[in-house]
């Protein structure tokens, strides 16, 4: 097991390096010159000397490969560097990442409870009212883009009803931090949750149905075990394994999905930072934020492997 874990962890390093290399050169191919977003065209017209000095001081005149390895070297020394607009990337991450984790974390918990709950009930009460409603909602939740859901929620709950703020994470003069956090998080969390609930609901329903039609469930019933015990002890436990895998795999997607949602809600997490950085060609920020999402993906993949190994003895690790 230890060998398996070390092997998986070591494999992440070349993968992250490869991802950073691809992202770095991919960004260069977009043709966006960050200077054009830092300096007005009028300034480029009127005083190109100062602009050239700025370009030089940012190291943008160096060959791409040198820029890349300079950035990589700094990262390996623990220095994430500075964005082109002068902000410390470590400070940006320190402030923004907890916001994103908060958003993704609440969405994960809420969607797991609601999605799995409704999925299980739909399976137990197959073709019942909850099953039909759940199936319709699942299709809707998957079919409607998250940003559209976010915009609709803003229109209804922020603009028409005025119940929740449409943007930001903190209000000035908030008297109760908990209530303030709740108000700001409710709509973005709900938006992320709706999309995820749909997936989990369908998956939980289908796996539970498969399990309930298994021979060992019929055997349990024939032994006269109470129905609730059959569902909970024999059905639920076995149905949850694949659902948990899906759930863990959704974590990086939640972080990635927050890129869109944070932009819609002007939520100051890592996703909004990344969006603004892409627009303005701020490569250092895009690289670091992309790597964070990639690392989350790799870690979750690793966790799934480990979970599978722990839950299913048929999986033989490192052999």
């Amino acid at each position, binding site marked *: 097991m230890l060998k398996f874990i070390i092997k998986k962890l070591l494999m992440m390093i070349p993968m992250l390096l490869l991802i950073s290399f691809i992202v770095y050169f991919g960004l260069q191919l977009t043709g966006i010159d960050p200077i054009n977003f830092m300096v007005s065209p009028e300034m480029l017209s009127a005083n190109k000397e100062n602009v050239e000095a700025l370009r030089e001081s940012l190291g943008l005149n160096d060959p791409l490969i040198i820029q890349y390895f300079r950035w990589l070297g700094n990262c390996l020394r623990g220095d994430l560097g500075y964005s082109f607009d002068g902000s410390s990337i470590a400070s940006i991450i320190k402030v923004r990442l907890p916001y994103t984790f908060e958003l993704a974390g609440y969405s994960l918990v809420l969607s797991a409870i609601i999605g799995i*709950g409704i999925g299980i009930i739909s399976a137990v009460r197959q073709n019942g009212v909850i099953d039909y409603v759940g199936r319709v909602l699942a299709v809707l939740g998957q079919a409607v883009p998250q940003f559209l859901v976010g915009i609709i929620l803003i229109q209804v709950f*922020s603009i028409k*009803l005025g119940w929740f703020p449409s943007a930001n994470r903190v209000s000035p003069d908030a008297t109760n931090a908990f209530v303030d956090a709740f108000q700001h998080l409710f709509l973005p969390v709900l938006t992320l949750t709706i999309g995820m609930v749909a997936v989990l609901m369908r998956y939980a329903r289908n796996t539970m149905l498969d399990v309930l039609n298994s021979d060992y469930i019929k055997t349990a019933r024939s032994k006269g075990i109470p129905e609730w015990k059959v569902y909970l002890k024999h059905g639920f436990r076995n149905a949850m394994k694949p659902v948990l895998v899906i759930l863990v795999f959704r974590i990086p997607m939640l972080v990635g999905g927050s890129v869109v949602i944070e932009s819609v809600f*002007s939520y*100051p997490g890592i996703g*909004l930072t990344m969006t603004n950085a892409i627009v303005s060609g701020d490569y250092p920020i895009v690289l670091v934020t992309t790597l964070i999402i990639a690392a989350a993906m790799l870690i979750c993949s690793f966790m799934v492997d480990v979970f599978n190994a722990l839950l299913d003895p048929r999986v033989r690790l490192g052999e």
Partner: protein
Amino acid sequence: MKKMLALLLATTLTAASLAGCGGGGETSGDATNAATEAAASGETAAPVASDGSLKLAVTTGDGSTTDDRIPTPWYNRILATNLMYRGLFLADSTLTEVEPDMAESYEVSEDGLVYTITLKDGLKWSDGEPITVDDVQWSIETALEAAQINSIYTAAFKTISSIATDGNTITLTLSEPYAAMLDVLAQFAILPKHSLENADPLKLESDTFWTAPVTSGMYALDELNVGNYFTLKVNENYEGEAPKIEKVTCYFVSDYVTAAQAGNTDYVYGNAADLVEALQNMSNFNAHEVDVLFYKYFIFNMKGIDGNENPAMQNVEVRKAIIEAIDRATLATLYPTANVLNSGVPNYDPAYNGFEYTFDAEKAKADIAASGYDMSRTLKICYYNNDQTTIDLINTVVYYLQQAGLTVEATLSNDGTTDLFTTRDYDLGFKGKSAFSIDEWYTEYMSTDGLFANIFGGDTSFDALVADLSKAVTEEDRNAVLTELQALEQEKVYKVPVFTVGTYVFTSNRVNIPEGVEFCNPLYMCDLDFENWELAQ
């Protein structure tokens, strides 16, 4: 089991719905009531703010402003920065008439070369340090070394050959007259030398100073919450009349319209058709139309300074015919307020020479054919604004040119500056420019221009006239130079204005603005009598 599952689901759903109802109602009851009443009456309404602060929105969606510091006053002068920073002079809404602000008095020599300005006594920064002529001198000298700064400052300050200070007086000696010097000084925010003298001028915009700035205006920073907002409080060291509004909250947002609809701002500006339409439809916002020099124009990719020509656009008759093929008056209807113009001088300006580009599709078609233009080639259009109005405009232009028999391809650029002036894979470009004055339009023709020389080939024929324009102090001289410049630009046809777009300032009806206040270009500073603005109770 059934009961357990039912209980689990019921608990989950109840918790979710209770949470949803409880949180909103608890803290924004007024807002809810107001919005509901408004909705019932069929109005588009934002919730009324419950606190006593003026709300402003600072957009971060275009990548030019970050939400981890306050916006700086040397790039654009938005209202938030105007409340914190002042200049030696204060302009009226035309931006061309100025009165002393931090200056007590001033004198300009007859030849227009020496400006002697005396600072008011007792001026203080928000940290209590005195504001001195050293701050003024340092600010001007640093502006010349800065990269992220509005070019109107560098263009004006380049003409200053020496700066001398004596007590509370500063003397600027110019190498040549600069007619708009006082107007520029009225926009230029003086910054505190004692806080910034060790900052790198090239990266002044990103200095940590802007997270806790020392200010000179009627407000000082109270709190900056990264990514969310910053608040302003009355600057106790401001020597002028204290503002009636005691607190200003500036939210970092990605969309002005949503911010306005959600009650997160009392002040919005812009010229995009969708923004104007949305705000005009909100009954709780008042519109103030502002006439600004926001040019929308075509540029022709002619020739680089490296001599690399675009053969298809060398014939001036082709360029004229292309313009004749486009009905600019119809294009203007895409914007709420757009005035078609035929040169850099608006038609209402006394210096306008009366020339008009007329739309004549048949003549354009015949002229293009007669010019020897290769009709089998594809005319390439490049543009960079991705708002729907611009996309509609470009599609219409493509249609007009196709009617003239041309094969046309339009490309939306991610980085207009690079694509228009470096990559240059196009024939006709479409761009916008928010100009401080007409001079800025003509400066683009200079052979030394850092961008336009790349497509106009470094043609020197405009240079002397543009230099004369910046020196022309009297209206007579100025009109004479402008007349010559218009004739030259209409002969060369390197760029052709489509129209100027009017800008709107919208203020919410929470704000009582004193009688007689006229708004200026919202990216510059003028006297808005802000100290007498009040919030409705």
